[in-house]
């Protein structure tokens, strides 16, 4: 005769309150090569993205930018929990994205740190992907200029869907 009891330990999840600050790191080693960082920096410096205006190379060799997320851009689940504003300072190196965050909540209702961290990671991933997309778009635009014997009217527009469109009229 035997009895089975299944026990799942439940790690304690720190609770955060109306103001919370922290630091997280996201590995970019598999996504961004050492040359990739240089390309990204060049892209940011040349582009008209909001981040570019805040891009500042630092003494430790990393570049970084600040982004403030608020209103409709905040994750819905955290807005419901009272999040009003999230400021992220993102530092990029070839291997990592280091993020320090300052979140402001309107309510004293406790919010699990795990929820905040998951939301922050999502936002950081979105930012890194935006940079990658901008870098790819910049290179495609450059190539397109030389594509045809007559590439005419090349222009770039940013749509409201976070999409960069490179438009051109060409003759082949």
């Amino acid at each position, binding site marked *: 005769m035997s009895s089975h009891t299944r026990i799942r330990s439940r790690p304690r999840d720190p609770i955060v309150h109306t103001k919370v600050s922290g630091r997280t790191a996201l590995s970019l*080693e598999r996504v961004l090569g050492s040359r990739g960082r240089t390309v990204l920096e060049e892209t940011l410096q040349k582009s008209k993205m909001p981040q570019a205006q805040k891009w500042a190379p630092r003494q430790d060799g990393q570049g970084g930018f600040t982004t403030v997320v608020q209103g409709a851009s905040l994750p819905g689940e955290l807005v419901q929990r009272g999040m009003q504003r999230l400021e992220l300072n993102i530092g990029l190196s070839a291997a990592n994205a280091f993020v320090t965050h300052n979140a402001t909540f309107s309510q004293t209702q406790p919010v699990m740190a795990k929820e905040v961290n998951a939301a922050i990671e999502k936002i950081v991933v979105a930012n*890194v*992907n935006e940079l990658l*997309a901008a870098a790819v778009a910049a290179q495609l635009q450059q190539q*397109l200029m030389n594509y045809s014997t007559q590439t005419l009217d090349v222009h770039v527009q940013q749509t409201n869907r976070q999409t960069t469109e490179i438009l*051109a*009229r*060409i003759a082949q």
Partner: protein
Amino acid sequence: MSTFKIPDEAVRIYVDRPLTPEEKVDGKFVQGTAPGPDLVNPEIVEHEHRRDLDTGEGIICIAVRPGETLGELYVNVQFEGQIGKYEDCMAGHNRLLLQASDWLRGALEQLLPQDATVDVELVASPCPDAKTRPPVENAALTILEGRIVYTTSTTNVSRNVNTSTLRNQQEQQP
């Protein structure tokens, strides 16, 4: 050395009608609307923008959109040629698709680490009246290996616009 892979299901051609026997045999055709974000620029499809195009001319749109998981990107290639010149239009799209795939390979080579693993998914939604098949396999191979092979294979293909979406997702570190 980079590692590349194209799963069999990663290359597809979507058509909004029942498949022809040839398309069924082809194995890459799927009835329905292509999945994923709609990156087609509807303005350049309009006749008013294409009315004054000369033979061989086209309006193109290459759209780039960030994805949701780390390293994920969507790239869409769209070509609109003279009104009613379906085969010319499709040929222009196919040339651009292969060329853009080569550019994308170059861009990824610049950005990614040398040992990066890249997954490519390529879906095409070709012109309803053209009979030329979009070179989806060659385009995917071009992104991964940098070799352009022009294809002359034809089949009956239906849909609304000349557009292909290339999706690239670099694997995250476990």
